[in-house]
């Protein structure tokens, strides 16, 4: 059991989702986040005030997968999110102790979708 967490550009979210769905990965949680990375800062101006926006808006995806789906998930995110410019984001793969599907009480491998081995 792994948790694949990715922080990607907002504008690439649809591409990432499409790539994940192609890889038969349907269970995903998406959260708007803000963070600081290596990007050039954006400057905004309001009348006499100029401000440097240090926090850039991104989206974060959390995907619980069985071991067999870790690589497909990572590949799909890479395909969908990469532009080649600074600021494309990160992917983290974390170990997961336990997963419970609330509706049925199923645990671990049975609690995440899909469960089958990749084609």
């Amino acid at each position, binding site marked *: 059991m792994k948790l694949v967490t990715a922080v990607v550009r907002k504008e690439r979210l649809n591409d990432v989702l499409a790539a994940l769905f192609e890889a038969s990965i349907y269970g995903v949680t998406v959260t708007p986040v803000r963070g600081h990375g290596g990007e050039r800062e954006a400057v*905004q*101006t*309001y*009348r*006499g*005030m*100029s401000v440097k926006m240090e926090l850039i808006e991104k989206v974060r995806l959390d995907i619980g997968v069985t071991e067999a789906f870790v690589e497909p998930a990572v590949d799909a995110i890479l395909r969908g999110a990469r532009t080649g410019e600074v600021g494309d984001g990160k992917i983290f793969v974390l170990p997961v102790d336990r997963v419970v599907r609330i509706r049925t009480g199923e645990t671990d491998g049975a609690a995440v979708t899909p469960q089958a081995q990749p084609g």
Partner: protein
Amino acid sequence: MRRHDPTTERRSAPAAPRRRKTLLGAGMRVMPRALAGLAMPAGLAPVALAAEPPATTGPVAGMAAGDLAWMMASTALVLLMVVGLAFFYGGLVRRKNVLNTMMMSFVALGVVGLTFAAVGYSLAFAPGSAWLGGLAHVFLRGLGTAGASGADSLPALLAFAFQATFAMISAALISGAVVERMRFGAYMLVIALWSVVVYAPLAKWVWGGGFLQQLGALDFAGGTVVHINAGVAAAVLALLLGRRRDYGRKAMLPHQVPYTLLGAGLLWFGWFGFNAGSAQAADATAVLAFVNTLLAPAASLVVWALLDMARGGRVTAVGIATGMVVGLVAITPAAGFVGPAAALAIGALAALPSYLLMLWRARSRLDDALDVFAAHGVGGISGALLTGVFASRAWGAPVDGSLAQLGVQALAVACALGFSAVGTLAVAGLVGLLTPLRADPGIEAQGLDVGMHGEEAYTDGEGALLLPVARLEPRTPAVPNAARSEA
């Protein structure tokens, strides 16, 4: 006479002598004309309602239906400016203070509406000395719907209503300087007193036959009385109140720039009533003021955009909204006195001083939060002075622009600056003795919406539990707000 012959009017627009040529009236707003009507016996109006049916049920004697219709529409348009101002200001503050900020404009409709009806109008326009009007029209005594005595005159009550909306917007303008930190009750008291003690005398001086009018100062629609006055009052109040705690420490960004654009658009729309309505008739002067109100902001908007471009390489939304307003402010004193080309010049020229002052102000210690002084004070001064330069008899001004007229304009500006500063200081100082002017630091950090009004502008209601019994506990938010506080 011209007004009843449209063909003559159209043909004669640029060169024909205007009807408002009395020396005293000096072409300014024709308040003398309305005043003539007020000479009717005090107390007549209530009687007239019953005794003179033609005056209240039929056409108003002396004034064409078109003029009446335009003046009522203009009054409503000026009222709409207050709503526009609420959105203009509301968009520029942080989300935790947007309700408080917008309410500061809206509450002026009520507070100043009352004070102006009670005494303000009388002090400005009832017969009195050259410095202050009398008390003849306290609580609108003696004002009726009948046309004033002479032909061609505005019904006294309508004259009041039109003037009242000017007093409302003036008071509301001040609020932009004190947002995000002033106690609401103290603010209501300040504008109530200010509308009587500061606004009414100045209106008397410039429009009510007071000494500035006698000197020949030109102010077609209120550059001095409304904008310079409110701009100075705003700066004084901001100084007296002190800076917001976050000022200079945190970036305080506009939370809803589209509101600001919407507000600026509504202001422009309403300003047609403000300026063209100041002709006090649907006539050639109104047409000129109307067109100038279209042209000057167009010019200032473009110049502002170019200044933005030169400074930061980009045209900003807040910038063009501000540029529009500055152009409107600047054309206000000149609207019925200058030709359209001069209106373009006034708009274009007025942009730079306000733009530069805004740049300076943001780096200064003066927390005039929404730059009321830069936009209205400085814009008003630019407009008042440029009126002395561009005024043209060919377009209906009582005098041509000249160095002497520029001097008169400068004198009027100086009088307005000085009187408004001293008067506002006195009013706010007095209120400050009675009750604290500033919100306490906890409420300022939390936001005035929740802290002072117990409301939020943007909430989805998640986590809000219905209380079993409706209890109102003043100053205590119903839901603990520790998490929302910034402190």
